[in-house]
């Protein structure tokens, strides 16, 4: 039973037929791991907090820098130099004090990733590099955690949802390592992609709609077009298939 305050706070989304009171209760019991609290992580965290997710665990080792502020909308000038997870928690709890925000200010590695996401039921990719994305992808498959991918560059972005063991994963089309470079981006792009990821998380937790599985969504902000491409599980994938582990 929702309290009168919860009923009032979430009234507009409870009105959605696919959500209702039962759906809202599901969201309020959910535990989400968010890897990265930057350009993608900011809108994801804000919208999941506004929607009333029960617990959001934010993992990010970084501190806020001036150059983050064009896109990482969780942070303001007063946050420069502070740990992102601390600033994020404060902002998110001002938005919705009933959401439990857990913070981990550590770098994600192959050695600690399993422990960092322990106890969460979904994992959201809001990273800024491919190598950590692959660490998350492998962990998600090993722990059978639904994994919500997003990435951006400039005005362009992409998103895909991975259900381990059932749908194509991030490594299914892997050809080899890609050099890490400083990437250009304007804040509206991770805004769009992060909100798509948050939408996918909410849909998954509620068990509604059609997920972005086996479908890679590409967004072109310069034209405002969305292109969808089908992808398939690769039986020889070195993460979700029988392939030998690659670099």
């Amino acid at each position: 039973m929702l309290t009168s305050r919860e009923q009032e706070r979430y009234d507009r989304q409870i009105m959605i037929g696919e959500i209702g009171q039962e759906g809202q209760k599901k969201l309020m019991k959910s535990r989400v791991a968010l890897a990265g609290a930057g350009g993608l992580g900011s809108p994801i965290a804000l919208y999941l907090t506004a929607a009333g997710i029960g617990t959001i665990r934010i993992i990010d080792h970084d501190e806020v820098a001036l150059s983050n502020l064009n896109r990482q909308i969780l942070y303001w000038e007063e946050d420069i130099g502070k740990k992102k997870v601390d600033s994020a928690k404060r902002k998110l709890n001002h938005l919705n004090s009933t959401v439990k925000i857990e913070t981990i200010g550590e770098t994600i590695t192959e050695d600690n990733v399993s422990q960092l996401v322990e106890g969460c039921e979904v994992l959201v990719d809001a990273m800024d590099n491919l190598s950590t994305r692959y660490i998350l992808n492998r962990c998600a498959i090993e722990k059978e955690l639904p994994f919500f991918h997003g990435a951006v560059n400039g005005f362009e972005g992409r998103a895909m949802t991975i259900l381990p063991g059932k749908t194509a994963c991030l490594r299914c089309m892997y050809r080899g390592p890609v050099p890490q470079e400083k990437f250009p981006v304007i804040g509206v792009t991770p805004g769009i992609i992060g909100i798509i990821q948050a939408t996918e998380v909410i849909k998954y937790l509620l068990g509604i709609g059609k997920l972005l599985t086996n479908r890679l969504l590409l967004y072109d902000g310069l034209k405002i077009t969305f292109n969808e491409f089908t992808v398939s599980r690769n039986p020889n994938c070195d993460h979700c298939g029988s392939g030998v582990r690659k670099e």
Partner: protein
Amino acid sequence: MPIKIHIHTTHRQHTHGQEVVSVEGSTVGECLNHLIKQYPGMEKALFAKKDRLLNHIEIYLNHASAYPNELAKPVKDGDEIHLVTMLAGG
């Protein structure tokens, strides 16, 4: 009807701004070779060496991933190829 190759935004500097280029060929690889004949700058944008695509290049044929062995995939008139680059930022 020719085969259309959709050029990624970051590669259009090599195609004089063309977003779609018409090519001929019976495989994806032949189509890419025809593209490179028309726009030689595309070779370095797509290939690490002969017949070896750069790791960040993705190829979709009729809106489906052509991976693996993309270059050997057969194509027919009217098919559409999208050249896409992997994104890493967040």
